[in-house]
């Protein structure tokens, strides 16, 4: 299990390849990347603030729960903070399981939990103004299915 919190970009392809490489007992690898979206047009920068210390603890706890619940061979979470532009990768998760259902479910679980239980906050900057992204009710509701 590996949890990385960093401001620098990461290489999604290399990370996915390294994660998948050399596993003989795991039949399924699922990877997911989150990308900065420019929904309304005009996004200059997405700024992500986090809570150093708590972020790493929260992500490790979420990843450990996923590993335990789906008997994963491994799990990876990379999440960036700082400023990034539209199209840049914000974060990725990867899961390795014996069967694909477990790998998919565990990846969804990781995403649902790190969206509303890991201390990150997004702020969108446009040429005109800047505003904090509001949490959505459905993100909180998504936890109920687990």
């Amino acid at each position, binding site marked *: 299990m590996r949890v990385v919190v960093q401001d620098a970009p990461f290489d999604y392809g290399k990370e996915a390849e390294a994660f998948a490489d050399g596993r003989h007992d795991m039949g399924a690898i699922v990877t997911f990347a989150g990308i900065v979206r420019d929904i309304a047009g005009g996004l200059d920068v997405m700024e992500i603030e*986090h809570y150093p210390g708590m972020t790493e603890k929260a992500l490790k706890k979420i990843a450990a729960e996923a590993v335990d619940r789906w008997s994963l061979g491994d799990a990876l979470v990379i999440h960036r903070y700082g400023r990034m532009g539209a199209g840049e990768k*914000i974060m990725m998760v990867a899961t390795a399981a014996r069967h694909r259902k477990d790998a998919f479910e565990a990846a969804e679980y990781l995403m649902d939990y790190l969206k509303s*239980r890991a201390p990150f906050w997004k702020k969108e900057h446009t040429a005109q103004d800047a505003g904090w992204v509001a949490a959505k009710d459905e993100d909180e509701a998504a936890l109920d299915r687990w």
Partner: protein
Amino acid sequence: MDVLYFAWVRERIGVPKEKIETTAATVNDLISELRGREERYDAAFADLTALRVALDQELSEFDAPLEGVREVAFFPPMTGG
């Protein structure tokens, strides 16, 4: 204890972190004390449904006791991913 603020809570209060001497028994007591100090705290803590609290880096509740706690953090609901 150290009190930390993040995102718009940090912007509204104007500092990311401060040391606060308090005898408040619970998070709610601490919030009442802060709100009584200055308008900027009163504004930031006006709607607790828009806030979350962490005690020593674990998500917690507003009625949680503060005894033994070294670090309190206030922030809006999280928007990672």
